[in-house]
């Protein structure tokens, strides 16, 4: 019975359309998040989980830390969604929280490492964290590029915070310069300049690395 089926399909279609056309940037969605709607939370995690995790893992270069900080990012998003004014897109705001949380975590880790070094210098007992970071293999890198990308990530880790952020957002997360400028609250030329300097510094670091390892 084609007409009935047609109606039924149309009925299903009409029912499902609003769900599939759920715009994450819409004010309705944001107000649902503000009301603490669990299905809205779930949808947000579903849509942004990989994006947040990929950004965080690119900056932290550690899977376990990245998983922990990814969770913290979403907790922060749910807690502070009341204060989200909508001046930027939801996506930009979430990326910004991801970057801030990751950089805060790195700074904290560095402080702990410095404190442990000072303690060990004064002969106090402390568990000294490993100074040489192990190679980081990003799970999304092609198998044939694994070793080279690990060397590149080690070099990226030596960049200044802003250069590192711009590089990771562009090269790892694949964002445009305009999107990065929004996230970093800067202009597109500034991002271009950051990327230029990041690439120059990476080339210098890699040149040193290969000169040492080829001798």
């Amino acid at each position, binding site marked *: 019975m084609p007409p009935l089926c047609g109606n039924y399909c149309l009925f299903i279609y009409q029912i499902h359309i609003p769900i599939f056309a759920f715009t994450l940037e819409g004010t309705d969605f944001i107000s649902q998040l503000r009301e603490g709607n669990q299905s809205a939370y779930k949808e947000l995690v579903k849509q942004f989980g990989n994006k947040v995790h990929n950004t965080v893992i690119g900056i932290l270069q550690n899977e376990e830390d990245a998983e922990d900080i990814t969770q913290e990012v979403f907790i922060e998003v749910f807690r502070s969604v009341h204060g989200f004014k909508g001046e930027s897109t939801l996506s930009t705001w979430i990326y910004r929280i991801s970057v801030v949380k990751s950089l805060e975590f790195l700074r904290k880790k560095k402080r702990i490492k410095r404190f442990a070094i000072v303690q060990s210098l004064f002969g106090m007992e402390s568990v000294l964290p490993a100074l040489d970071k192990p190679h980081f293999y990003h799970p999304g890198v092609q198998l044939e*590029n694994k070793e080279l990308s690990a060397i*590149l990530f080690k070099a990226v880790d030596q960049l200044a915070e802003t250069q590192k952020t711009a590089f990771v957002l562009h090269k790892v997360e*694949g964002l445009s310069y305009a999107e990065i400028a929004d996230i970093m609250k800067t202009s597109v030329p500034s991002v271009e300049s950051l990327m230029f300097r990041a690439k120059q510094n990476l080339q210098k670091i*890699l040149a040193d690395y290969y000169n040492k390892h080829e001798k």
Partner: protein
Amino acid sequence: MEPTKNHIQQTMESLDGMAQATANPFLFDKVMNRMRNAGQSQMVKPATLRMAFAIAVVVIGVNVFSLLHFNSNSSTGQSNAFQKEYFSYITNF
């Protein structure tokens, strides 16, 4: 020098065509668990704080009361008489 340049070039291009790292499939549940746990610990915090505040108020109150009470009594002849009687009782005992 040429091999180094090639290595650098290859390394710089090693992230081209990479895929996105995927988050833990149970991310939502983990986030919700952490939020619930954080909520519970926050619920406990004000209660313990209130208890500590109440104890502090009682301790300070007792101290202030005893200070004012004994200070005001110490100057009266009545307390001196009481002291004399008390100490004479102790020494005679």
